[in-house]
């Protein structure tokens, strides 16, 4: 259990700035998810926290004690930080049991005690009986789970997970998520979890940090992040959000009346937002419904997604804009439909500008 404090952290590789003045406070025992597009610096941030890279500027503190930056450099092995690598980093010369048992060996756990805890960890990742295998004899998902088990077997204060479930199917993911939750509850370790799966982040994390090009652009609990994105970029990134221009007719106490493509609707807005006139509206597929009312639109394409279809439509009023709508069945491309706005989020005005500039 450690709290982590990151102050103005910057990391450059040669000329390119990969982390740009990142500040972040992670509470003791918190479960923080890191979301962000590929290459935005998530892994780099994790590696800095673990101690495998040194900051170009800024510093990192564990429980208020500096561990990196400004002359401090606590070596990784002294940080009590477990990490699951994106590339697994299993040791080819060891069996699965030896890989998983390594952290215990380091801590001097021997004999039956070690065997038992290794077996437990392997059982937790649903790989009992794989003790004697070599990493080369495992499937991709099995390797990933061994890497997980290795991390579970130690007793870390901080757990860093770099896309730990990327190669697993839905069911294993679900059961691994359960394992993380239980592990977290049992050990109270501070966990930082990189994932590209938003559902996973939402399901697991206390808070989610959204990163973009080396910066943290929003840090909020899952529900809030989803419901109230603070910028257009986050709005688009989270929950397949689309953004459209609208006219705000009234806005007060977190509720707004807007006109979108000629039709009026009620949406949510920030408590402080009270502007009238032009606005930008974030619309998620679930916010819209195809039916008898609403603005007219044309179906562009339909994507089947199991229990439902995601239908992409373009409003006749503004064919530049593409919106996604959930519908029980796919609709034929070209069909004319009416789309009703059931919900939506009016983006805060100030955020729109930097996002625009950055794009």
């Amino acid at each position, binding site marked *: 259990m450690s709290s982590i404090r990151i102050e103005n952290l910057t990391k450059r590789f040669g000329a390119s700035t990969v982390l740009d003045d990142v500040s972040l406070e992670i509470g003791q025992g918190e479960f923080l998810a890191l979301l962000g597009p590929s290459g935005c610096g998530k892994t780099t941030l994790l590696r800095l926290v673990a101690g495998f890279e040194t900051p170009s500027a800024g510093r990192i503190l564990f429980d208020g004690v500096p561990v990196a930056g400004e002359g401090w450099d606590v*070596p*990784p092995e002294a940080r009590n930080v477990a*990490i699951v690598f994106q590339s697994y*980093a*299993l*040791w*080819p010369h060891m069996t699965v049991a030896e890989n998983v048992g*390594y*952290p215990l060996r380091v801590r001097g756990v021997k004999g039956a005690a070690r065997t038992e805890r290794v077996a437990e960890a392997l059982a937790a990742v649903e790989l009992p009986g794989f003790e004697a295998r070599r990493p080369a004899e495992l499937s991709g998902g099995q390797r990933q789970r061994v890497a997980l088990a290795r991390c579970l077997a*130690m007793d870390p204060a901080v757990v860093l997970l770099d896309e730990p479930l990327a190669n697993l199917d839905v069911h294993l993911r679900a059961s691994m998520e359960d394992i993380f939750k239980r592990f977290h509850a049992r050990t109270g370790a501070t966990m930082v979890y990189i994932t590209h799966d938003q559902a996973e982040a939402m399901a697991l994390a206390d808070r989610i940090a959204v990163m973009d090009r080396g910066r943290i652009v929003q840090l909020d609990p899952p529900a809030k992040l989803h419901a109230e994105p603070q910028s257009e970029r986050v709005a688009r990134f989270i929950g397949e959000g689309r953004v459209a221009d609208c006219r705000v007719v009234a806005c007060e106490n977190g509720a707004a009346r807007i006109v979108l493509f000629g039709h009026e609707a009620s949406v949510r807005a920030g408590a402080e937002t009270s502007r009238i006139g032009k606005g930008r509206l974030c619309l998620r597929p679930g916010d819209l419904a195809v039916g008898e009312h609403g603005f007219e639109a044309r179906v562009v394409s339909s994507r089947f997604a199991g229990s439902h279809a995601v239908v992409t439509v373009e409003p006749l009023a503004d064919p530049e804009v593409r919106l996604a709508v959930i519908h029980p069945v796919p609709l034929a491309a070209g069909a004319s439909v009416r789309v009703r706005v059931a919900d939506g989020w009016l983006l805060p005005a100030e955020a729109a500008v930097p996002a625009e500039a950055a794009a």
Partner: protein
Amino acid sequence: MLAAAAGFVAVLSLVPVARLLAEAVAPGGRPDLTLAAEVLASRATWIATWHSVKTAVLGTAISIALGTGFALLVGLTDARGKAALTFLFLMPLMIPPQISALAFAQLGGPASPLLRTLGIAPRLGTPNRFFSEGGIVLVLGIQHAPLVFLALRAALRSLPAEEIEAARASGASPRFALRTIVLPLMTPALAAGAALAFVSAIGNFGIPAFLGIPAGYTVLPTLIYQRLASFGPAIIAETAVLSVLIGVLAAFGFAVQAAVLRRRDFRLAGTARRAGGFALGLWRLPTEMLAWGTLALILVAPLAALVATALVPAYGVKLGPGTATLHNFAEVLFRQDATVRAFRNSFALAGGAALVLMLVAVPFAYLVVWRRGRLARVLNAAAELPYALPGIVLGIAMILLFIRPLPFAGVSLYNTIWIIFLAYLARFLILCIRPVTGALEQVDRALEEAARMTGARLPFRLLTVVLPILAPAAAAGGLLVFMTAFNELTVSALLWSAGNETLGVVVFNLEDAGLSVLAAAVSVVSVAVTVALMLLASLFGKRLPPGVIPWRA
């Protein structure tokens, strides 16, 4: 292409040895095992065998310790002056074993120029500590440490940082991670280097000859030499029997290596960042000082002795402002045209052998490691034989093979430079193969598969994917070949002919004629030339893939 590589190795390694073996069991063409039985029944044979094993094992241990230490220092830490350290650490390879033995002996004896200059030379006639088993072991160890170093250095380049980081995140201290992760992962390279050091030690003649014979300490190669000196018609057969014994010892070393590798898996995934730059922190300065101190002992001292010898007019004259002369250099470089010719020949032979062997080693390693052909694995073991044999014995085998004109072709290679070239190819084959196969053990097979799926045929794949990935190891092998062949003494001793002298022959003849000062002068020049070549290589090495020039970062 693979078949060609395999055939090449088979011909070079098996044919000379088979010819010798034929001589052992059928001296002069008549099958007769009494001689073999006689040799094997002799007590001297077994004493020498025991000594050979003992010195080789202990010497290898020293080589491993030194080579590993330096490779880790250069490959993984943030020590300064890595290029210089690497460069200097390789230099013992360039000094022929006889000369290093001599230099070390001089260090310890009453004649030591160093000790005499310091005024602490022991009294005349005091027995020299280096003329002993310990001396042999030490000099063997130092001489062959670069073999371990180079193999390991090349392998460390392909070690992904994540492998170590995962250990440190598990709480392992750098030392613990070194012991449990780095060294085990380096096993193929370590085994390759150790195997090389072991066969080199088993087959070494110069060092035990110089340091062992005065102490009455015989090893197999010196025993063979003594047998050769009996001049009788049976000597070839007798030496052949003893050589077979050496072959068996070498094979034993190889078996150990194979056994070590068989138990484990060492393939590393292909893309990750290279490990390195571990901070030594407070230990940096002491470590660096230790490294430089060791270098001073193992390199500077013998080299200084060599230079000192080359600078005096006659052996035994004390070096001083009044006695120093460049006359010896003038004599060997300008008066004796054989020296310059020998430089040219040795350069061509060593360079040619290095080049050919690097090209053979890659497809051959592919065959052994990835195709896992049984024949290839047998050949892999057999390739060690010509290197394990004392050079003079290999020379005899080559004479037996090539004394008559080649069948069909009708031309004779005997008395041409080509017979030396072939002998070099056979002898140094293993120096190139070991590091390359060791490195390939660690390469993720998927890298080649990815090339196959694009439709690339084998030669193209070898050239564009396998070779560049193995380039550091192949270059290490080529460098080993070049440096050893350039100063090689014993193989060419029997094979040279007028106009085809090698540097080793020149040095040996001068030495043999009691002209040590001239011999030392040639050696100094040859070390200087090698150093110049190495520097030249680093100058042009900018265009080569990283790792090809070991002393470049």
